[in-house]
């Protein structure tokens, strides 16, 4: 049974109506249990749980410290290419948007990598638009060979691939896969992706599983918060992460909580996600999956990022530019979206320490690169 079958089993459930039916007793029950099931998770996402954010925060904080310690892992994204063949209505890279298009040469990849690595970062997330004929698997493999000279962990956030191509990526040194479903609402998904390869809901939905099968060490899922009712999408994101963790226990499963940000294009989020909503998702997710990584990007503003550090966050990006070549060329053009936290890696490390946490620069290294340097 694939994840879609589990998702389909909820098709006749009115999630919004169900969440509205929970009361305070349900919340207390969910909070007092040793381990949460999916109903408890939904309870913690419900309106009834809103007055209990402080109680949820205490539990989430305790679970996080027990499982991850007072540590936050740092990483930064690196945009290799913004060519795209999709018409996603919410994305700055969508092919209908008239923005300068660029793909880094391998020399530029090397220079960008050198500049990023100078800040001490060892974990990098590489991104491209969805244009497999331009940012080809061979191009990504070649880029990885450059990046491995500087980084101990390389994750990809690119177009969905088949299992065999993911295997190629793993062989090239990629150990992490980030892939957002954007929204689990299949009908909405179809309207948000009017054309392009990303339109295939099922191919994208199953991509994290293919990454697990292909041998990725870490797989990260998420939705773009704001596209659909946040309770529904947060719930299904959690179910997806839980399903992957149960079926591929050897893989480190994590989630990201990206909120919609201004970008090139005119799309406005259908569903506003307030700070309190965001915190509720974060806390419910941590309580539901105590061992799941939670990643927070610079889409969030710095004061907010500082305040949520102790509530379950395990990874944060720093020193971010969402433009292609944005580290070596400060005038490199339009980014995928506007970031809210522009702090450098060093500034971020200082902020993490100020909160009583340790910034972790390296938490993994592929063995063959170890063997070369040992």
């Amino acid at each position, binding site marked *: 049974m694939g994840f879609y079958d589990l998702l389909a089993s909820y098709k006749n459930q009115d999630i919004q109506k169900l969440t509205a039916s929970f009361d305070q007793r349900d919340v207390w029950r969910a909070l007092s249990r040793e381990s949460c099931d999916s109903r408890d998770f939904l309870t913690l996402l419900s309106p009834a749980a809103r007055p209990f954010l402080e109680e949820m925060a205490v539990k989430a904080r305790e679970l996080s*410290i*027990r*499982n*991850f*310690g*007072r*540590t936050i892992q740092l990483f930064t994204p690196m945009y290799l290419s913004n060519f795209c063949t999709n018409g996603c209505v919410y994305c700055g890279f969508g092919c209908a948007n008239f923005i300068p298009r660029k793909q880094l040469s391998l020399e530029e990849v090397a220079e960008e990598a050198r500049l990023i690595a*100078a800040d*001490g970062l*060892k974990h990098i997330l590489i991104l491209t638009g969805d244009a497999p004929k331009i940012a080809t698997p061979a191009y990504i493999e070649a880029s990885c060979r450059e990046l491995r000279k500087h980084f*101990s962990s390389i994750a990809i956030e690119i177009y969905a691939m088949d299992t065999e191509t993911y295997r190629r990526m793993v062989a090239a040194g990629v150990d992490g896969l980030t892939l957002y479903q954007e929204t689990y609402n299949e009908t909405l998904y179809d309207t948000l992706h009017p054309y392009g390869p990303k339109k295939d809901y099922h191919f994208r939905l199953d991509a994290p599983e293919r990454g697990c099968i292909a041998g990725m060490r870490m797989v990260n899922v998420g939705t773009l918060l704001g596209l659909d009712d946040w309770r529904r999408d947060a719930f299904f994101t959690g179910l997806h992460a839980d399903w992957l*963790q*149960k079926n591929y*226990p*050897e*893989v*480190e*499963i994590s989630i990201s909580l990206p909120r919609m940000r201004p970008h090139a294009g005119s799309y406005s989020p259908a569903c506003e996600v307030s700070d309190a909503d965001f915190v509720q998702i974060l806390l419910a997710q941590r309580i539901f999956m105590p*061992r799941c990584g939670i990643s927070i990007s610079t889409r969030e503003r710095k004061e907010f990022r500082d305040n949520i550090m102790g509530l379950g966050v395990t990874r944060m990006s720093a020193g971010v530019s969402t433009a292609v070549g944005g580290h070596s060329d400060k005038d490199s053009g339009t980014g995928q979206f506007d970031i809210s936290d522009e702090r450098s890696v060093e500034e971020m*490390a200082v902020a993490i*320490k100020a909160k*009583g*946490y*340790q*910034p*972790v*620069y*390296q*938490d*993994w*290294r592929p*063995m063959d690169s*170890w*063997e070369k*340097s*040992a």
Partner: protein
Amino acid sequence: MNLSAPDTFSPEKDSLIIGGESLSSRLFVGTGKYPSDTLIPGVLAASGSEVITVALRRVDMDATTDNVMQHIPSNIRLLPNTSGARTAEEAVRIARLAKAMGCGNWIKIEVISDNRYLLPDGYETVKATQILAKEGFVVLPYVNADLMIARSLVSAGAAAVMPLGAPIGSNRGLQTKEMLRILIEEIPLPIIVDAGIGKPSQACEAMEMGAAACLVNTAIAGAGNPVAMAKAFGQAVAAGRKAFLAGEAAVSPGRAYASSPLTGFLS
């Protein structure tokens, strides 16, 4: 019989021998989960611990930023662990790398292929132990509290066995107490209770039972004051050991005897 327990009460001579090395403290500590690695020297000093485990995956000798190794005093025995290994083969490779990097020949084998509960894979752990012990490593494997696995580790050449008291990071104490008791009785190697210990009293109880040592990370690193908690753990482990060596007084069976005993006919 547990060889780590001397037959007579001689606390002044009581030391734990592992891999030919004599340790006076029976508390091992970890390096993970601290708000800052700068706390490590204070934790070591307060606890009296002489052994510290470090995840090789975190070690970056070329780091331009802070490196955990800088904070470990040179007189402390380093116990690198194979955290991140999912198979015996990966654990063996990490162990060899640790040695090549100058971390010595002690190795804590951790083979974990379940990220949901972080439970160790006993079968792969035995395989890795076999290979590394033959290569001259002092192998300390982290395993479930399982007698058959522990016996296989003895045959494989382990220097000690490190069963879990409860899952990693759970702070739930000695959930495997009955199995630990059996291992302490049956395994002729030091039994070092690893994982799950959340409070000094639990470490003390493990030592009272006859465990040779305890390894504590989360309970110290996650404490409000890690240095103070390290001191408490050091004292608890020492107290538990002394109690074990002293020999417990008999516990009253807590029942009344009938005026007409069942065995009265014998007289």
